[in-house]
């Protein structure tokens, strides 16, 4: 039963690659946005907040279709990126990563924002009186103290990216070896006769990966907390 076929391996590795890239690219952005939402007042803040949460409430198919319209080869952004940077999203694994990144962004930002809000601003003031410029305060006080939240956001985002299905299949379709992730592979397998065993294997694998991510994040969070507050 546990003979994972090359096609299945391809889907598993692709899923891991898509989710990892999506999380790594989204994290710095998520930290920036989380900080903005936690610490700054500006015009359009409510709008930004709503826009970030939109993928959470929109049907994933809608998000995927909007991505296709915007980042497709004929989309405004997609055409520009393809012409100027050679970056193509449509029907590529990079598009899957983009879809996963956008779908998981609200889940990634939320813990980061909350943990930055929880950092004592009086410590940031103390840092300023010791000569730290605002960016130094952020890097040496705010970010280290918010680290457990950043890690939690990364794990949540990774888990969501790993399981993303609707927006991804709408935007980049279900091409084995290019855009077929575990989710879309399972979907394809249960549509085919005799695909049950293969589908089951992928189900087990995705459960294992998710469990490992959760256990790993718990371990990281505990270590980070210990490091922050002394053992």
């Amino acid at each position, binding site marked *: 039963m546990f003979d994972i076929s090359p096609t299945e391996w391809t889907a598993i590795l692709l899923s891991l690659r898509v989710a990892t890239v999506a999380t790594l690219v989204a994290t710095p952005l998520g930290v920036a946005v989380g900080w903005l939402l936690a610490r700054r007042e500006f015009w359009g803040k409510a709008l930004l907040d709503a826009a970030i949460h939109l993928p959470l409430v929109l049907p994933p198919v809608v998000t995927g279709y909007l991505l296709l319209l915007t980042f497709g080869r004929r989309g405004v952004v997609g055409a520009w990126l393809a012409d100027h940077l050679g970056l193509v999203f449509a029907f590529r694994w990079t598009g899957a990563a983009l879809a996963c990144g956008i779908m998981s962004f609200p889940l990634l930002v939320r813990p980061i924002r909350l943990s930055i809000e929880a950092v*004592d601003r*009086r*410590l940031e*003031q*103390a*840092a*300023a*009186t*010791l*000569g*730290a*410029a*605002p960016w*130094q*305060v952020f890097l*040496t*006080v705010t970010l*280290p*103290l918010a680290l457990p939240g950043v890690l939690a956001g990364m794990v949540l985002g990774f888990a969501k990216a790993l399981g993303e299905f609707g927006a991804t299949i709408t935007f980049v379709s279900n091409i084995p070896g290019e855009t077929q992730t575990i989710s879309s592979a399972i979907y394809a397998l249960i549509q085919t006769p005799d695909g049950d065993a293969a589908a089951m294997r992928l189900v087990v694998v995705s459960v294992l990966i998710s469990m490992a991510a959760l256990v790993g994040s718990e371990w990281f969070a505990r270590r980070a907390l210990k*490091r*922050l*507050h*002394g053992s």
Partner: protein
Amino acid sequence: MLRVDVSKRLGEFAIEASFANEGRVTGLFGASGAGKTSLINMIAGLLRPDRGVIAIDGETLDDTSTRRHVAAHRRRIGYVFQDARLFPHLDVRGNLDYGRRMNRLAEDGVLWRRVTELLDIGDLLDRRPGKLSGGERQRVALGRALLSQPRLLLLDEPLGSLDEERKEEILPYLVRLRDEAGIPMVYVSHDPSEMRQLASQIAIIRRGRVTAFGGVEVLPATLVQV
């Protein structure tokens, strides 16, 4: 020399204070809620005055008429808060070294030794702030401010959160600091005996205003205690 002439509205409360000092330690004396902390937050650059001037050694830090406002991190003014505010993710050594790193100052072993000996914190270097007593925490906060090599040191009720016994533990360090560190200080307190022991000049603050300025004789007579 420090010159302060500012006004600031904070809700219903208004601060309108003016004083200049030459002495080593200027005391700001007044009941809690009199506006002392807001006043030194303005000196530190953490709070911006609505109107007025703050200058130190001839350098203008705030001047609302020319819209000048030097950011807190560029003022080189040390601040010891009532609640220490040590960084919980750094050990004592990291806390003490923070100001030097942020200001990109060269390592100064002589200064480091002098400050850690002056405050008796040499044995605490590897500990986390969470493992320190209240008095130790306040001594580390003092050392941290001193090692950032400020030109003025602000102390906001540094003994305020300590019990009587701990106060007696810290006070001698403050006296040594005054006599040996050679950095002018602004010392905020509502305790006349601390004022008597430390301050060379005292500004009495009442409801946001300086009502008297001078030597220890300006302290209210009814509160005299030895």
